[in-house]
């Protein structure tokens, strides 16, 4: 028996009917055709399906679709705005952090969640934040570098805090 859900994906309200056992990943990929989130294991081991649920990184294969009723979901398709890459996406692209690209959406979402919480992470903090996202291509070096680079770019683009002036 299908249930009707309403939630917001990447800022857009959506309404879908799903079976009770449908996962958020299945709902995103098959019902909403948002195929950016990937299925690598379907049991919470690989991190390729990482999305944000109300701003927190979750594994979409371990979340039932019905659990997101009324909530906010952000996927990799929602990172770029108006055709402009998010600094994380740009850094992944410019630094060769995406080889096959299959883990990339999940990596980006975990990294995005990290930077929302901790704008200036140390390399060790980046390692910790991405420990649930497996990559088989890169050895992680360029991924870690890209996240650190993106954090710097975001920081530099923020207006200087009030009360401080030059000289």
């Amino acid at each position, binding site marked *: 028996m299908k249930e009707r859900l309403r939630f917001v994906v990447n800022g857009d309200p959506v309404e879908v009917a799903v079976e009770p056992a449908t996962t958020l990943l299945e709902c995103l990929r098959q019902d909403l055709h948002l195929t950016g989130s990937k299925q690598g294991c379907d049991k919470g081991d690989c991190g390729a399906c990482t999305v944000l649920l109300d701003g927190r990184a979750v594994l979409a294969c371990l979340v039932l679709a019905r659990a997101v009723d009324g909530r906010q979901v952000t996927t990799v398709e929602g990172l770029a705005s108006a055709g402009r890459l998010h600094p994380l996406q740009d850094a992944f692209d410019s630094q060769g952090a995406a080889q096959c690209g299959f883990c990339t959406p999940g990596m980006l979402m975990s990294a995005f969640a990290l930077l929302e919480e901790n704008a200036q992470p140390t390399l060790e903090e980046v390692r910790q934040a991405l420990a649930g996202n497996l990559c088989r291509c890169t*050895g992680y070096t360029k991924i870690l570098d890209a996240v650190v680079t993106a954090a710097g770019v975001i920081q530099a683009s923020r207006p200087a805090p009030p009360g401080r002036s030059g000289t």
Partner: protein
Amino acid sequence: MSDQRQGGPPGPGDGEAAAFSVIGKRNRKVDGRRKVTGQTLFTDDLQPARLLHGKILRSPHAHARIRSIDTTRASALAGVHAVITGRDLPVAYGIIPWTRDEYPLAIDKVLYVGDGVAAVAADDERIAEAALELIEVDYQVLPAVLTVEEALAHPETQVNTFAGKGNVSKQVRLTFGDVEGGLAGAEVLVEDTWFHAGSTHAAIEPHCAMGDLGADGILTVHSSTQVPHYLHRELSRVLELPVDRIRVIQPAVGGGFGGKSEPFDLEFAVAKLSCLTGRPVKILYTREEVFTAHRGRHPMLMTYRVGADRDGRLTAVQARIQIDGGAHSSFGLVTTYYSGQLLGAPYRLPAYEFDSTRVFTNKPSCGPKRGHGSVQPRFAFECALDMLAERVDLDPIELRRRNVLGPDTRTINEFRITSNGFLECLAGVERASGWKEKFRRLPFGRGVGVAGSTYISGTNYPIYPNEMPQSAVQLKVDRSGRVTVFAGVSDIGQGCDSVLAYIVAEELGVALDSIRVVTADTDLTPVDLGAYSSRITFMAGNAAIAACAGVKRQIQEALAERWGVPPGQVRLADGCATAPGVPSHSLPIAEAFQAAEARSGTLGGVGSYNTPKDVHGSYRGGTIGASPAYSFSAHIAEVEVDGETGQVRVRKIWVAHDCGRALNPMLVEGQMEGSAAMGFGEALLEEQAYDERGLHRGPSLLDYPLATTLDTPELESIIVESHDREGPYGAKEAGEGPLHPSIPAIANAIHDAVGVRLTRLPFRPPAVLAALQARYAAGLAWKGHRG
């Protein structure tokens, strides 16, 4: 316009002093923006209308005869559209034409736990799974042989009935030079036995395929394959359809590493199910199915005898290797040769013999994994060299230097070596790691180790004998200034689509964003043999340069005529055509294309590459391992070993690799880092293991531990460029070679740290602790070299 390149004089782009616009730069990948935005479509992202979902029923037994299969109830289930069994696909196939020894679905008997027996197509995956439950298979369980010893002891329990008799899959014994004399005359002899337990690729994208028989009678198969051309041929054989009725398309592939380099049951199943239903049918492997599809690194038991004189110069090497092949041949014929043939460099072996035997067992088939067939022997041999260095009291790097083979020579097994940057690799890691201050000088529990290796840049002979080019590129050169590159190559993440774009941009002076690359579609692209044996940059790169040559000439001639200069003075670079000295002799590239099109007609180019065919030994098997060029690598690993727990931590690996020329250093580093990390995982974490019933011990990405960000050591890449005279701009391979030294460098570092020589992979804490305790028990407290 058609040009072919082959081993020979330098072609365009080979100029040593050429100032490149695109080549050698850290350019972005042509598919990068799509990958970071989630727009890249992998096979499972294709969701056409009327799509059916397939599932495969798999054997719970390691070895059993199929008495009967009843699919009646499954076929009757609502939402099920078709059910097939092995009898529906009765033609045997195999990636190597001489060993076609598998069926898409088992017919008479199953050979391992996970062997496919039936497949269904249904409205959705859940209905398909429910239908599998309704298929009744009557098995007569047979004795199973799960180890090499059992398989050889019980030839009457034959695993693969295509084998002549018994369970020997392939045996190769080759002798070069006076091995007995070299060993007898050796002043120092090192002998030991090493074991590589076998590992799997574990690409993050599971295998996926979709078949779609169109109303026009054309069967299209999309697949996450890394060999669309070979898949195309085998689909035609098995489905008994003419090859021109089949179109194979390889969408973006989420990692391969050799794990997608032959046909799998799902590709035949979706094709057949679509032919039966007239609807598109897709199958996505579960992660468990990926583990049992396997075709990963063979377990190898390797005994080496290495002789040398007192100065550490090798006198002879003798190897005896047992290879656990699993249920089918796969690439096993090649694996068996590679286990011996690829040891001929980077050291000069005055005499060499190997005797390798591959054996069938009732387990998932092994095949090619990154560094096919040679990673295991390299582990053993580089450890033996370390033992040798200790015996003759030489620095292990110095021992290696004393035995180098050098450039422009032949190996003992008669392979032609051209460029060779191995010495620079050794020097690079020695310097960067601070080796001299560390080796034998770090406190107990910390150590460094070194290892070297070589690998092929493609093979001189294709899998099925033919004289045609191994790779080809076609160009559509448009008056808008855009160039479309058509090539059969398989981008599996390594970046070959981008490499082709860099080359064409360099040759024709077009901006990178004006290049479109269309690859791996048998209806649209000329044949390339696939992403295996590290062949694409070398072969398709040369084909791309050849494809550009004629077009470039036409453009130069058109502008030379207009400007009154010799054609050779017309330069195409950075989006412009120019002639030196006269500022007015400058045109945007689109107008240059228009000038040439007006003068010569529609522009286009075809180029191909074929390998040199006369650069190998004339003995049987002398062609296997022959390559147009060889890459070289050296690693130094620094480790910490906890003497209480046996835990090994690799702090850092310095990776030097001679790739000839880095067409994009960023992509080369990515291959070096990824290779070293994969080798690291094999050294410490991974094992493709089965229990006594033949069940995989942990077919998940949690139980089969892939290294995470927290495990993976710091990696530092040092690119060495030896400028190979036959490679495109001097380039050679970078995708597989840099994996080889990881494992022995770590093993040798563990010895430097705590004085034990580990010979069985993986080096997990219990094994390390047991070795340490054995050493303590023998009263050999490790004083090391530190006094």
